């Protein structure tokens, strides 16, 4: 009996150890020597989520989500980009409005992952950029993107940043780093 209790205790201790060894609290304590872009826009500090009362969100994700949501509006209002996003407007008639929320979430997840967020809850789990922008591999992609449209897309993100108070005039380094980050995806996205 005593032996059984000891064995059970050992198993539970092992389970607790395994769980705690990969819990997100531990990842938060790891301080990188060079601050990531994610930490520079707020990092993993938990703050109240203004869009969801009573819920908490990492400050870095909150910043990126605000930029993404602003940028989606800018891109949606850009006639040059309209050919890539008609479905977002079309879903109004169909009564299926999940596209916009999904776009915002996926785009924010992608930005979180790309900027160095370590919280697995915010990890981007979609297709690779190359597959996602290849009409042959993704029937949601109607046309291939060209260089001019990609440049315009990055410019629209810049406008989205400015709407959140970040411009080259007041934070050139951050704007330059985010633009450089976006251009790392150019080879995969521009396929025409």
């Amino acid at each position: 009996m005593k032996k059984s209790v000891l064995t059970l205790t050992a198993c539970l201790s092992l389970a607790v150890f395994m769980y705690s060894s990969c819990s997100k609290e531990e990842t938060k304590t790891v301080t990188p020597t060079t601050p990531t872009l994610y930490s520079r826009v707020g990092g993993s500090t938990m703050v109240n989520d203004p869009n969801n009362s009573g819920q908490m969100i990492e400050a870095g994700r909150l910043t990126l989500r605000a930029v993404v949501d602003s940028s989606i509006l800018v891109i949606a209002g850009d006639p040059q980009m309209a050919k890539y996003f008609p479905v977002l407007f079309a879903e109004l008639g169909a009564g299926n409005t999940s596209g916009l929320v999904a776009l915002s979430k996926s785009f924010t997840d992608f930005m979180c992952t790309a900027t160095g967020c370590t919280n697995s809850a915010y990890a981007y789990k979609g297709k690779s950029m190359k597959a996602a922008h290849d009409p042959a591999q993704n029937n949601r992609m109607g046309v291939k993107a060209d260089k001019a449209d990609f440049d315009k897309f990055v410019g629209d993100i810049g406008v989205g940043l400015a709407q959140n108070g970040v411009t080259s005039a007041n934070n050139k380094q951050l704007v330059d780093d985010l633009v450089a980050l976006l251009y790392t995806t150019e080879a995969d996205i521009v396929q025409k």
Partner: protein
Amino acid sequence: MFNLNTCLFQNKNPSSILLRKCDKQISNKMKNRKFLKVLAWLGSVVAVLFVVLVVHIYLVTRHPKPTNQIQLSRIDFKQNINEVEGKKIKDFVNSLPDVKGAYFNDKDNILVYIYKIGNQNSFNVYNKVKSLGNYKAERYVVTEAAANTGCPIGKDQTTFTGMLSAYISKF
């Protein structure tokens, strides 16, 4: 329960051969019991670790339930709207109930806004904007052909993970 006595009792004339046979049977039974005991413990440990894994996955992947009641709409102005007028229109639309955000592209005279569906709709916003300044404007309506294309990361329902995520997000 199997033991030496019952084994011998079932055999009227126990011989040394029979004794060895019974002894062997008892030994095998004991080995089986030990094996089952180890198997039970192993099963318990695996079960505990599985539960820990499930709890861990739940804790690190739980999200607030996404709201699907947000809609994007657009109004195209058929006249030039300057920056000041554009800001006025944007602020007006932003002040309407259930409108969550708006952007006016004064270069191309396009208004885009996001609203929560239910009490608000694009016809109502369009009529309010028209009445604000008697503008020449049209609601942007997507053709069926254009609706068949779109941003790939917006709605991934074609892959297994996309479908699974959509299913899990319902809970």
